[in-house]
C-alpha cells in the first residue's frame, strides 16, 4: 500500500501544530511570569527593561516554529506563504500610514506599536487562507 499525499499532510501538520503549541505555551508562561514579576517587584528600570524583553525572546520560539513548518512545505506552498507575507507587509504599511496620520492629526485614539504587529499577523492569516482557497483542489 502506497502512502498518499493528501491536500494537507496530516502527520506533518500535526507535528508542526504541536511544535507551535509548545512554543506558544512557553511564550505564555514566560510572559505571564515576567508580567507578574513586574507587578509584584516594582523593579528598577534596568530590570523592567529585561523583563519586557522576555516575551520578545519567547516570541522568537514561535517564529522559529513557523519557519520550521514553512521549511517542510513544498516549493509551491512555500511560495504561497511568501506571497501572504508580502501582502501582509503591504497592508501593514498602508494601514499604518492611514491610521498613523489620523491619530496624529484627527484626534483618533493613539494605538501602541503592538497594533502594527496585530495587523500584520491578521493580514497574513487572511491572505494565506484566501490564497489556499484560490488554489483549492
Amino acid at each position, binding site marked *: 500500500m502506497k502512502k498518499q499525499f493528501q491536500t494537507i499532510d496530516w502527520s506533518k501538520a500535526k507535528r508542526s501544530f504541536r511544535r507551535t503549541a509548545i512554543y506558544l505555551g512557553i511564550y505564555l508562561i514566560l510572559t505571564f511570569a515576567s508580567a507578574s514579576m513586574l507587578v509584584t517587584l516594582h523593579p528598577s528600570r534596568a530590570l523592567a527593561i529585561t523583563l519586557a524583553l522576555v516575551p*520578545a525572546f519567547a*516570541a522568537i520560539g514561535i517564529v522559529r516554529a513557523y519557519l520550521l513548518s514553512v521549511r517542510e512545505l513544498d516549493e509551491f506552498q512555500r511560495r504561497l506563504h511568501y506571497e501572504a*507575507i508580502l501582502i501582509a507587509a*503591504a497592508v*501593514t504599511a*498602508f494601514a499604518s500610514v492611514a491610521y*498613523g496620520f489620523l491619530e496624529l492629526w484627527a484626534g483618533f485614539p493613539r494605538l501602541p*506599536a503592538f497594533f502594527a504587529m496585530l495587523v500584520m*499577523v491578521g493580514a497574513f492569516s487572511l491572505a494565506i487562507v484566501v490564497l489556499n482557497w484560490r488554489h483549492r483542489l
Partner: protein
Amino acid sequence: MTCEPGDLPPKAKQASRAYIRDMAIAAVVYVGVVFGAVTLIRHMPFSLPQWAVVIVALTPLIPALMMMRTYMTYLRSMDELGRRIQTEAWLISAGAVGLGTFTYSFLEEWAHFPRIDLVWIFPALIFFWGLGTFIVRGRYK
C-alpha cells in the same frame, strides 16, 4: 534599489532610471502632502470640521500608493533573480518590523519607553527592505 553601473541591458537601465525618477517624485509629493496637511490642520486661522480633517489626514496615502505603483512597475521589469532578491528582502523587512514592533510594545508598556507613532512603521518597513536588499544581494554575488 539602485542601478549597477555599466552591466545592465539598455531596457533595464531605462526601467531603473524611470524607477528612480518616479520614486523621487513620489517622495517629494509625500513630504509636500504631509507638510501641506499639517499646515492646513494646525496653522490656519480657521479650523477645519472633523470630517475635513479626516480626509486631509488620509491624503498621504496617495503618494504612498504612487510609490507602490512605481515599485510594482519596476518589479515587473526585473528578471527572475531580481524578483527573488526583492521577495527575500521584503520577508526580512516584514520579519524585522513584526518582531521589532512586538518587542518595542512591551518596552512601551512595561519599561515606559516613549510611544512610537504608527506613521513610523512605513519608513521602518522601507528601511529594513533596503537593508534586506543589500544583504540578500550580497549573498547572490
